[in-house]
C-alpha cells in the first residue's frame, strides 16, 4: 500500500490529468467491449464468454492490415469489419444451436472457442508478443493540459468510443431497427409472428457486438502489446463492467467502464499490488447492495 503516492497525485494537477486520461482510455476501451457484451446479453440472453477473443482478433486484424497497407484507417476498418463477419458466422453456425439449452452448455461452447481462437492466433501470428506501433500521423508532440501529458492518440480513442456510445444509444432508441431490436429483446416470439426474421436480428446483434469488441481491439493495438491470451483479462474486466452497470444497460456499461478505468489508474498508485483486488471489491459491494447493478432493471 502506498497511500502517500496517491495523496501526492491527488494534490498535483499534472498527475491528476495524466492519471485521469489514462483511466479514461482504459475505461473507453472497456466500454466498447462491455457494451457489445451487454447488447448480446440483452437481446440474445446469452453470456458471450468468447467476447474477449473478438477483442483479440480485432487487434490482430488491425495489425495485419496496417503492416500490409500502412494505412491506419484501413487497419481500424479491418479490425471492425473482420470481427463483425466472424461474429455473424460464429452466431449463425454455432451459438444459434444452443439457445434453448442450459446456460452451462452455452458457456461450454464459448469456452471451446476461446481455446480454439487463441490457438488459431498462435498458429497464424506466433505465440510471442507483437506490437503494431504508433501510426506516424500520431507521432507528434503530446498535448500539455494543466501540466499533465496527453498523447493525441488518446483523444482520438476517447472520441471514437464516445461517438460509438452516442450512435448506439440513439440508434437503439430512435430508429426503426433499434425499435425492432428492443422488441426482439422483450418478446422474440411476438416479433417473429409479426413477420420479422429474428434469426437475422440475432445474427446482426452478435455481429454488432463482435464489431465493437474488434474496434476496441483495433484501437488498442497501437498502445498495447498483442499476445494470443490478450482477450482474457479484458473479458473478465468487461464482465465486471456489465455486472456493475447492470446487464443489458448501455448507460450502465459506460458509467461502469469509466468507474473501473479510474479505479485502475488511481488504484495502481495507492495500492500497486491490489489494483485488481480493488475492482473485485467494488464489484462485490455493488452486487451485494444492488444485485441487478447500478442501472439494471429489477430481474423479472
Amino acid at each position, binding site marked *: 500500500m502506498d497511500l502517500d503516492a496517491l495523496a501526492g497525485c491527488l494534490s498535483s494537477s499534472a498527475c491528476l490529468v495524466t492519471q485521469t486520461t489514462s483511466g479514461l482510455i482504459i475505461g473507453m476501451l472497456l466500454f466498447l467491449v462491455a457494451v457489445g457484451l451487454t447488447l448480446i446479453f440483452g437481446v440474445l440472453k446469452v453470456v458471450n464468454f468468447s467476447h474477449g477473443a473478438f477483442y483479440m482478433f480485432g487487434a490482430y486484424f488491425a495489425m495485419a492490415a496496417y503492416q500490409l497497407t500502412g494505412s491506419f484507417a484501413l487497419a481500424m476498418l479491418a479490425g471492425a469489419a473482420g470481427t463483425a463477419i466472424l461474429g455473424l458466422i460464429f452466431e449463425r453456425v454455432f451459438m444459434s444451436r444452443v439457445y434453448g439449452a442450459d446456460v452451462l*452448455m452455452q458457456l461450454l461452447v464459448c469456452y471451446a472457442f476461446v481455446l480454439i481462437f487463441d490457438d488459431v492466433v498462435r498458429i497464424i501470428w506466433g505465440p510471442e508478443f507483437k506490437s503494431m506501433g504508433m501510426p506516424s500521423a500520431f507521432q507528434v508532440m503530446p498535448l500539455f493540459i494543466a501540466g499533465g501529458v496527453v498523447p493525441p492518440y488518446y483523444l482520438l480513442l476517447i472520441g471514437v468510443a464516445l461517438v460509438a456510445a452516442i450512435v448506439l444509444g440513439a440508434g437503439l432508441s430512435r430508429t426503426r431497427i433499434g425499435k425492432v431490436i428492443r422488441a426482439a429483446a422483450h418478446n422474440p416470439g411476438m416479433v417473429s409472428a409479426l413477420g420479422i426474421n429474428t434469426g437475422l436480428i440475432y445474427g446482426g446483434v452478435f455481429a454488432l457486438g463482435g464489431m465493437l469488441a474488434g474496434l476496441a481491439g483495433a484501437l488498442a493495438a497501437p498502445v498495447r502489446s498483442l499476445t494470443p491470451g490478450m482477450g482474457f483479462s479484458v473479458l473478465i474486466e468487461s464482465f465486471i463492467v456489465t455486472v456493475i452497470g447492470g446487464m443489458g444497460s448501455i448507460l450502465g456499461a459506460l458509467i461502469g467502464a469509466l468507474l473501473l478505468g479510474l479505479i485502475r489508474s488511481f488504484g495502481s498508485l495507492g495500492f500497486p499490488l491490489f489494483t485488481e483486488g480493488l475492482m473485485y471489491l467494488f464489484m462485490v459491494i455493488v452486487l451485494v447492495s444492488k444485485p441487478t447493478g447500478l442501472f439494471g432493471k429489477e430481474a423479472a
Partner: protein
Amino acid sequence: MTELEAGRARALVPVSSGAALQRYRDVLIAVIAFAVLASLPLFTGSKALLDFVIRCSAYGLFATSLNLLVGYTGLTSFGHGMFFGLGAYGFGLIMQKLGVPIPVAFVATLAITAVIAAIIGAICVRLKEIYFAFVTLAFQMLIHSTILSWASFTGGDQGLRGGIPRPTFLGINLANHIHLYVASCALLILGLLAMRQIAQSPFGYTLRMIRDNAARASFLGIDVWRAKLTVFVLAALFAAMGGMVMALFVSGAYPEFAYWTISGEAIFINMLGGVSTFLGPMVGTVLLLLLNDTVTRFTEYHGIVLGVVILFFALGLRKGLLDFVAEWFARRRKTGEGR
C-alpha cells in the same frame, strides 16, 4: 433428465429399507474401489500412473463437490476454485509456519475454510442464478488478488515454496510416494462416500427440490437460504480437501490454484462427465486429465484439440458422457419392456 428423475423417484418409494440397503451398497462399492486402488502399486511400479491417480483424487474431490452445488442444488458457482486454493494455501501455511502434525493441520484447514465459506456464502446464496455466479467469481478473484499481493505471507506470484514438511504420524509417512498415494485414495473414497451420503439423505432431496422449485420448497416450510448456505459450506469443505491433496502432491501452493480458470475447469469437468449422476464429475475428471496428458504430448496446440472435443460434447451429445450413457440404458430398458 426427466426419465432419470422418474426412475430415481420410483426407486425411492420404499424409503426406510431401500435407503438402508442403498447405503450398504454404497459402502460396499467404496470398500471395493479402495481395495482396488490401494492394491494398484502391488501390480505396477509406474510412478506416472500413481501420480495420475493422485491428481484424479484432488480434482475428483473438487469437481464432485461442485456438483453438489451445480447438479443437486442448481447453484452455478463460478468461484468454487477459491476453496480449492484456500485448502492448498491453508494447509501449506499451517504446516510451514506451525509445524503441527498433519491431521491437526488438516482439521484446522477445514475449520478455517468452513468459517470463510460461511461468511462468503451468507452474502452469495441470496442472489439468483447469473448474479450468484458473478458474485462468487468476484470473491474468487478477490482471494486470488489477496494471495498475489500479500507476498510476505503467501509468497505472492511465486507461490508457497520451500516444500511442505511432512512429519510421520502413526507410521504414515507422506514423504513416501506409496504412502501419499494410498492416503490420497483413502481421502478420495471417504470424501466421495460422504458426499454420496449427503446427496442421498433427506437433506439431499431437499436440495433437489430447491433446484426444481425453490418457491414451493419455501411454501413447504423449508428455510431455502439456510439449506443453500449449508450445502455451500459443505461443498467448500470437500473442495478444500481436494486442494490439500493437491498441495501435498506438488509440495506447495500456487496462485493458479485460486485463479478463476480452476473453477472453469471444474465446471468443464462436470459438463464433460455429466451432472445428473453422482459419479459423472469423477468420470469427467479422468476424461479431462487423460485428454490433457495425451494431447499435450502430441501437439503444442492442445487448445484446438480440447476445444473441438468440448464442441463435440456440447453440440453433439448435448450432455455429459455418463448422463448420455445412463439415458441410453434407460431408453434401452424401456424399449425392452415395451416388446
